[in-house]
C-alpha cells in the first residue's frame, strides 16, 4: 500500500512541475484574446478573437515565425544526426582523440552565447560568407549538437553491447544493426536530445542576433518590438507554436512506438 501511495504522490508531483513550467504559457494564451486598445498588452481589456483573424496581418512577424520553424526543424535534424553519431563514438569506444572530443563538447556547452555568436560572426565575415538562413542553422546546430551528444551519451554508456553483437550474429550488417537495434535502444536519448535541440533553437536570441544577417527569427522580432509594444499576434503565434510543438512531439512518440513495434 505504501508503494501505491508513494507512486501517487510522485504522479501528482510530476503534474505539479508540468503545471509550474506551463503557467506562464497560460497567461500568454489568455492575452492572445485581449481586446487591447493600445500597443501594450499587459492589462485585460475584454475578449476578442480579432488577433486570430488578423494573425498574419504583420508580414514581418509571419515571416519571422516561418523562419524560426524552418531553422529549428533543420538544425534539430542536423544536430540530432551529428550529435547521435558523436555520442555513440564517445560513449562506446576508446579511441585517440576521445579526450579532446569530450573537451570540445564541454567547450561548446560552456562557451557564453555571446562569445559563440560574436566569434562565429567574425568567422563568417572573414570568410565573406553571406549571413542568413544557412549561418543561423550552422550556429544553432553547433550549440544544440553538444546537448544531443550529452543526452545520447548518457544512454549509450548504459547500453548492453551484446545486443548489437547478437544482431550481427544473426546476420545484420553494420547499417541494419544500427537501424534495427542500436538506434531503437538509444532512442529515448536521441528523442530527448532532439527535443532539447528544438527548444534551444526556437528560443535562441543572442547567437542568432549575430549571425542572422537580415533574416529575422521569431524571438528577434519580438525583442525588437518591445520598444514600441508587442502586438497581440505574437501571443497568438506563441499559442500556435505551443500547439505545433505538441503535434511534433506526439508524432515523434507515435513514430518511435511504431518503430519499436516493427
Amino acid at each position, binding site marked *: 500500500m*505504501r508503494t501505491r501511495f*508513494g*507512486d501517487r504522490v510522485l504522479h501528482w508531483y*510530476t503534474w505539479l*512541475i*508540468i503545471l509550474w*513550467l*506551463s*503557467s*506562464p*504559457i497560460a*497567461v*500568454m494564451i489568455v492575452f492572445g484574446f485581449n481586446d487591447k486598445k493600445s500597443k501594450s498588452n499587459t492589462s485585460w481589456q475584454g475578449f476578442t478573437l480579432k488577433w486570430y483573424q488578423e494573425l498574419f496581418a504583420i508580414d514581418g512577424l509571419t515571416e519571422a515565425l516561418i523562419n524560426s520553424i524552418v531553422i529549428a526543424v533543420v538544425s534539430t535534424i542536423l544536430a540530432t544526426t*551529428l550529435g547521435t*553519431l558523436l555520442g555513440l*563514438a*564517445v560513449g562506446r569506444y576508446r*579511441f585517440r582523440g576521445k*579526450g579532446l572530443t569530450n*573537451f*570540445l*563538447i*564541454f567547450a*561548446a*556547452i*560552456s*562557451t*557564453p*552565447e*555571446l*562569445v559563440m555568436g560574436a566569434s*562565429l560572426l567574425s*568567422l563568417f565575415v572573414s570568410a565573406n560568407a553571406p549571413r542568413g538562413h544557412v549561418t543561423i542553422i550552422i550556429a544553432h*546546430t*553547433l550549440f544544440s*549538437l553538444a546537448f544531443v*551528444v*550529452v*543526452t545520447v*551519451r*548518457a544512454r549509450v*554508456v*548504459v*547500453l548492453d553491447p551484446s545486443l548489437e553483437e547478437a544482431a550481427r550474429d544473426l546476420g545484420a550488417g553494420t547499417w541494419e544493426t544500427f537501424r534495427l537495434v542500436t538506434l531503437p535502444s538509444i532512442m529515448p536519448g536521441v528523442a*530527448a536530445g532532439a527535443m*532539447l535541440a528544438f*527548444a534551444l533553437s*526556437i*528560443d535562441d536570441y543572442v547567437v542568432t542576433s549575430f549571425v542572422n544577417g537580415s533574416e529575422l527569427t*521569431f*524571438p528577434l522580432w519580438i525583442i525588437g518590438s*518591445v520598444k514600441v509594444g508587442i502586438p497581440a499576434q*505574437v*501571443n497568438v503565434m*506563441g499559442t500556435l507554436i*505551443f500547439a505545433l510543438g505538441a503535434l511534433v*512531439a*506526439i508524432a*515523434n*512518440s507515435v513514430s518511435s512506438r511504431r518503430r519499436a513495434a516493427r
Partner: protein
Amino acid sequence: MGRRAPYWLALPGWLWLGIFLVVPIAAMASVSLTTGNLIEGFAQTLSVSNYSDAIAKYSTQLVRSLVYGGVATLLMLLLGYPVAYWIAFKGGSRKSMYLFLLLLPFFVSFVLRTISWGFLLADDGILFGTLKGWGVLPTDFHVLATTVAVIGGLVYNFLPFMILPIYVALERVDPRVIEAAYDLYASRFDAFRRVVLPLSLPGVFAGVLMTFVPATADPVNAAVLGGTGNTMIGNIIQTEYLVNSNYPTASALSFTLMAVLLIGIFIYARTLGTDNVLEAAAR
C-alpha cells in the same frame, strides 16, 4: 565495424565543432591577449593583464554566478530527479508525452514567458496581491528583483535540461533490479540509494553538466528577474562586449568563466570518483 568505427562516427561532429567552434574560439583567445580600444584599434600584445584586471574587477560577480549556478543546480537535481524517476518507471506508454509537456513551454520565446512571469509574480498581481489581500503575506513582500527570483528563474529555465538526461539513464534501468534489491532485504530507500541512484549517475552527471554550466553563464535571468546586486558574470560579459566594445576584456572574462566552470566540473567529477575528468565532463 572495425577499429575505425569511432572515427567515422565522430568525423562529421568533429568537422562541425572544429570549423565552427575551435577556429572562432581560438581567434577569441587571441583577442583576449590584445590591448587597445575600438577607436584606436586593438594590438596583439600577448598581454595577460586583461585576465588579471578582469578577475580583480569582477570577482564578486564571478563568485556570485558560481553560487547562484550551484544552488540552482542542486535545486534542479532535487526537484527534477523525482519527476525523471516517475516518468521513467511509471510513465508507461505516455513517457514521451510527459517529456514533451515538460519541454513545451520552452518552444515559446523567453520574452513572452518573462512577461507572463512578470504578470504572475507582480507585487500586487493575481498571486501575491490576492495573498496580501487575505493578509497571508506582508504588504511589502515581493519576489521579483530578489536573489530568490534569479535562482528561481534559473531553476525554471534549465529544469528540463536536468530531467531529460536523468530520465534517459533511468529509463534503461530494468525494474527487476529494484525488485532484486528488495529481495535482498533493502528498504525502499536503500534500494534507491544502492541500486537506482548508481545506475542513474551517468544521467545525473549529464544533467548537472547541462544545467550548472549554462545556468552559471546565463545573463537573462539576472537581468530580467534580479534587482540591484544580482548582476551575474554573463551580464558583465555582455556589457563589456556590446556596450563598451571592450573585446579583449569580454574575451578574457569568457575564458576565465569557462576555466572556472571546467574546474568546478572537475571537482564534481572527482567527488563522484571519475578519474578521467574530460570523459566525465561530457558524460
